[in-house]
């Protein structure tokens, strides 16, 4: 006999979640550098910032209040409206 089970999941998962296509070039784009507030993340991002600027690429710096929680919505919206790509800096 066929038995019926109830779905224990959120039933919201898309079949596949694709990341956005990566840009071919960073020319004329703005790069967000997001510090997630882990120790020494700034060391990594400062160096990246130097390298981007040396190539004439615009950057903007952002920081999460804490790495333990997701970024606040206002921060996500600011990055999305002001930048084209994001580098999120992990560290330790």
């Amino acid at each position, binding site marked *: 006999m066929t*038995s*019926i*089970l*109830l779905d*224990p999941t*959120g*039933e919201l998962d898309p079949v596949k979640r694709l990341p956005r296509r990566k840009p071919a070039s960073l020319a004329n784009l703005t790069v967000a550098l997001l510090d997630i507030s882990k120790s020494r993340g700034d060391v990594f991002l400062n160096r990246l910032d130097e390298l981007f600027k040396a190539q004439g690429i615009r950057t903007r710096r952002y920081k999460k209040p804490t790495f333990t929680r997701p970024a606040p919505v206002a921060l996500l919206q600011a990055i999305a409206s002001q930048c084209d790509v994001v580098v999120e800096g992990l560290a330790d």
Partner: protein
Amino acid sequence: MSISPELSDGLVAVVKQDCPTCLLVDPVLQEIERAGLGLTVCVQDDLDFSKATRILDDRNLEHSFGLGIETVPTLLRMAAGREVGRVVGWDRKAWAALCGMATLGEGLPAYRPGCGSKSVEPGIVEQLAVRFGDVGMQARRIAVPPLEDDIELCFDRGWSDGLPLVPPTEVRVYRMLQGTRRPPGEILGLVPPNLSPCTIEKVAINAVMAGCKPEYLPVVIGAVEAALDPVFCLHGLLATTWFSAPMIIVNGPVRERIGMNWRGNVLGQGNRANATIGRALQLVVRNVGGGRPQEADQSTFGTPAKYTFCFAEDEATSWETLAETRGFDRAQSCVTLFSADGPLGCADQKSREPAALIYSLAGSLRAVTHVDVANAADAVVVIGPEHGRVFDAAGWRKEEVLQALHSALHIAGVDLGMGTDAAAPVVQAGAKSTRPKFRPEGLTLVRAGGEAGLFSAIIPGWLMKGSLGTDPVSKEITP
């Protein structure tokens, strides 16, 4: 449940062959038919036993369930789909009055009790409710194909923590939902990382899979509510590379009602409530929230505590309970969630004075996170009965033990600055100053464990930093 049109008007008798009283009244049913009163006879088993002419097959018990029959025979009078009269069992005067036939059943005894309706036999009620009732369960139905193993299907769907699950059939989930008065559709919050709405029904489904009994459900619901409180920071706790899992400590009368363990092997296996309540919470995170290892769960090592970590406190001691410390009284049942790694044992079989035992406990606590790091994580210390007796004999209450532990736990100028608080001063190695190992509220003491063994258990947690990390959360358990 609506009443079948066939039963919406006139007299309805519900009977079964396996009932001496039903056999006794069968001639009466024919008498009512002969009087032309519009009688329908619902038969629950052998359709041939009654001599009445208008028989309705109720072997699937749909009508008996819909009419709420608990005893057979039951005689009802219906009008426009509504019940306007009911007699349970054989009661000559009452039957006569309901039929308006003064001489009905003459010669029969005045009264005979009936038998139990087949619709209320053990295990049947839930099946009928699922089949014919409005049980309010909204989850997607997944058919297990014939010849396929339902336990294997649960594995294949990715629902399992690695151990077999109890397949969440409609009947099992309905039965689980009887453990709470809260409606199946009530939303408790959004479960990270996918931020999926979590209903009581979803909790019940996962509680079934975890192996819970219905009477555990309110505790699981309380644990889910606590976990979804933003203060607990479940998203970060799930995603961290650190070891920690949610740990549930239960206080209050519910501990005894559902048979929880706070005695020997309290942090270990073997007690169904302890084991399955903690597992149910983890399955909610996995299935409703989508939090899975090597995906959103980025833990380097994990911990066995991620299968399940739940226990009750021993409240038969002289100390204030965890619940009392957190503002509840002993008549209330509640859960408190901490982030927790596996327990670290502290053995001290020699100290008979509190001060010596404080030295041992503080020395062991110093190793939490890293021996030279201060104020990174909180810790719960489960004081075993034999260690507890050392404090009790000297009249030390919980507050005094906590104060002594904090005093003994200052790190001498060697904080490596690994906390999350950027504003906290980083003390260079070799500096003269000291820093407290734990924040003032960072140590929690509870009492539990088996009678023998001069041990206590240190349970360190993840980053406990208030708004920058996780804080313990308590919730009252509501029916």
